[in-house]
């Protein structure tokens, strides 16, 4: 996966950090660790590079009475990671949370607490959590269509050809680690879909066959594995990526933006976990008007999200077209789901909408 930014093995890095803490303490000084700030405020967007890049601002967590608990937890998490790496074992995020239950007072109450500490450690060393021995629980995403994935058989190590046209009404699941995969395809484009429901419809009617494409379902905000899979596939085979999500601020600014340029909270990894090539097929705010889609009023949280994107998100700040689109959505004050197209007939999306849109891919939003 992502290559290390710092030199030396992970174990060396962990040891180095711990040793600097220990030295400081025994010199009578307060130890401190420097973490990159994991937020949108600390990323910049360079369209030439195509992803959110960390600005390099860091926060220093000095060991004080107030931070002693997190400090202890961070160190224990690092110790767990070292053990995993040394024994070539892995732990899911959930398992790591349960391991902490053995830490008495330093245990985590809920998993989000342990995930945050894990993300901090990850950012501290500028690595992917898999390199620390931690793996996510989440499913990567589903694939169907004109694609053969070449994986290795885990028991024999021999190459394994997986034909994604042969899953019938089911689909191929993207594995958690995708670095070893190779691809064979003649597809013209990749269609990335937000909801499993829409994916099911397209699979059921073998849309991939008629459109000669690969269908990928993200199931909400794409996981790192899903992002990396799409990125590798599109880079290797030089095929375009079109994204089809709900016409609401969540679909636009959370799902699409994260897929295309990465997230603010794991900015050190965005370089590898993003798909700069991705283009926005729909549903655009203009689609709501053009296709007379049924809508729901935007919720408070939608409005806040859209305003926040216009104000703070470097991606939207860079693209005028997106600003216009989001402002249009805000002005209409409504949102429309992918499946709203069913108003015109269940297969309207296959027969009319997608062909119409794909006829003019240049008009897709960046």
């Amino acid at each position, binding site marked *: 996966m992502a290559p290390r930014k710092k030199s030396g093995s992970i174990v060396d890095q*962990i*040891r180095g950090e*711990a*040793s600097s*803490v*220990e030295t400081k*303490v*025994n010199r*009578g*000084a*307060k130890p401190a660790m420097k973490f990159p700030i994991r937020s949108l405020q600390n990323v910049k967007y360079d369209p030439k590079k195509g992803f959110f890049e960390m600005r390099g601002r860091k926060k220093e967590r000095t*060991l*004080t*009475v*107030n931070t*002693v*608990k997190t*400090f*202890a*937890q961070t*160190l*224990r998490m*690092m*110790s767990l990671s*070292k*053990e995993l790496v040394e024994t070539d074992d892995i732990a899911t995020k959930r398992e790591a949370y349960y391991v902490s239950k053995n*830490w*008495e*007072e*330093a245990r985590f109450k809920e998993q989000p607490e342990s995930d945050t500490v894990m993300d901090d450690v990850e950012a501290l060393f500028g690595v992917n959590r898999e390199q620390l021995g931690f793996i996510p629980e989440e499913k990567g995403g589903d694939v169907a269509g004109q694609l053969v994935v070449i994986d290795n058989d885990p028991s024999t190590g021999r190459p394994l050809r997986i034909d994604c046209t042969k899953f019938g009404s089911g689909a191929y699941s993207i594995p958690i680690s995708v670095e070893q995969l190779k691809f064979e395809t003649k597809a013209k484009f990749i269609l990335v879909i937000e909801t499993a429901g829409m994916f099911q419809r397209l699979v059921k009617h073998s849309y991939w066959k008629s459109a000669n494409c690969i269908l990928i379902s993200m199931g909400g905000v794409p996981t790192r594995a899903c992002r990396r899979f799409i990125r590798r596939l599109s880079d290797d085979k030089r095929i375009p990526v079109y994204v089809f999500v709900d016409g609401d601020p969540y679909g636009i600014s959370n799902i699409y933006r994260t897929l295309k340029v990465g997230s603010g909270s794991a900015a050190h990894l965005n370089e590898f976990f993003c798909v700069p090539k991705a283009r926005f097929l729909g549903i655009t705010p203009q689609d709501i008007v053009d296709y007379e889609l049924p809508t729901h009023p935007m919720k408070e949280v939608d409005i806040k999200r859209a305003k926040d994107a216009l104000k703070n998100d470097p991606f939207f700040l860079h693209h005028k077209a997106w600003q216009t689109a989001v402002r249009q959505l805000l002005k209409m004050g409504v949102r429309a789901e992918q499946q709203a197209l069913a108003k015109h007939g269940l297969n309207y999306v296959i027969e009319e909408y997608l062909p119409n849109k794909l006829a003019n891919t240049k008009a897709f939003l960046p």
Partner: protein
Amino acid sequence: MKKGRASRNRGGTAQAELFGEETSSEMAEQKTKGASKTSKLKVTKKNRTPSPQKPRSRGGAHKVAKQREISVSEFFAKNRHLLGFDNPSKALLTTVKEAVDNSLDACDEAGITPVVHVAITQTQDDRYLVSVQDNGPGITPKEIPRIFGSLLYGSKFHRLRQSRGQQGIGISAAGMYGQLTTGKPMTVVSRVKRKKAHRFSIMLDTNTNLPVIKSDEEVEWDSKHGTCVELELEANYKSGRHSVDDYLWQIALANPHVEIHYTPPKGDARTIPRATKVLPAEAKEIKPHPRGVELGHLMKMLKDTRARNLSAFLQTEFSRVSGKVAREILAKTKLSEKTSPARAHRDAAESLYKAIQSTKIMNPATNCLSPIGDDQLIASLMERHDADFCAAITRPTAVYRGNPFLIEAAIAYGGKSFNADEPIKLYRLANRVPLMYQKMACAISKSVIDVAWRNYLVQQSRGAMPVAPMAVLVHIASVWVPFTSESKEAIASYPEITKEVKLAVQECGRKVATHIRRGRRLADQEKKKSYIEKYIPHIGIALQEILDLTDAKRTKTENNLKDILEKSRKL
């Protein structure tokens, strides 16, 4: 509703007094106010319309109904709810309350530290025998029958000074109620110092409002002085809120110098010890303040005075009127200083009344009030509660409509007596008597709700009692407490009163907030200290695991870290 004992006694029939006073009811006594108005209504009608309560004569519709005078006893026998006898359980509470209030007033006047014995025993299903005994000065045998056997007979009606009871209805009304429901007389044993004790058996003739002495005998009594009242009545005993138990407990709270021995009908006898030996300061009697007098009363005073001219009248009959002030008042009228009060007609009285309202007159004297006192309040609250903290405040005397009054407030906070997620306990006291009913109609409750408790770190939802482990006590002392009704259950919301209550409670609230803040700070420090002890070992473990430290090195690192953090915490 008191009868004074071994104290002065103004003659005349109670009824005459009552109606003589009716225009001045405001100046005089609170409970009579409502009662006298009602009575007046009946009586003034007597020569015009038949009383609806009297049977008509038999002569048929053409004949005019027979007119009859109504005795005050008859009136109250029919309107017993006016006096707090609306239902059996309230009747029991009212009886005990009247007897205990009398005992405490008698002791306070005589400067005796009160010891009161209350015993209630069940005689039949719905009958109870109430016995209240005190160590007061006792009552002379000559006075006993009228005090206990006739309504509106007493010593406190005509004077302006703070006392629990006022118009002399209470205990005789209880006797009357007992007599109505059980047919039995009331027994009174009383002994004045160095005299023999007398035992009276008294009934009340409701037609004449005069006592009927069933028996009177000299008896041996082991107390040197004191009074014991015993009567049987139809009643119902219950515990909890509005119970006799609760009332006695609150009486002890309001009167920390009182010792109460209580034998309930069920359960063990108990003693509520005194929280202080300090007796309350004696409340002085004052003359009315000019601002507090209404026109009708002013006219009566003009008629009754012995003063020979208006200037002297103003100076001798009122408080806070000097020669200079009298001149100022009279200058605003067309009256001469030398005019004889007896000759001042209605118009003159009215111009005098108006002149009084527009003249600047010093506030009434305050020695007519006897507050419980900060120290006493704190001692009392702490004695009756297991609380962590207590604050009390006595406000300076204020005036509403010419009547001096004074607000005291106290708050007890924390400790085992209170529940953190329940509304606060509110004690409302008026002239040292707990108010048991009509909580939400009372100016005290309204003012307490009105305080922005969140400023004092106490939870409160809008328009509701705050929720905290806390008791709030508010006492209003006044020569005339303005009750909303004759049943003396809630205080009227005069702006001057609500303002004073709020100020007093807020001042206590500030002290409580300081206490809460201090507690939080200590807890916070404690928590931080425990943080160090809890988490440093984990830093040690992690460092040892990562760096393969020896145990000794680990301990050393942990100790160094502890030192660093302890030092920085103190700075």
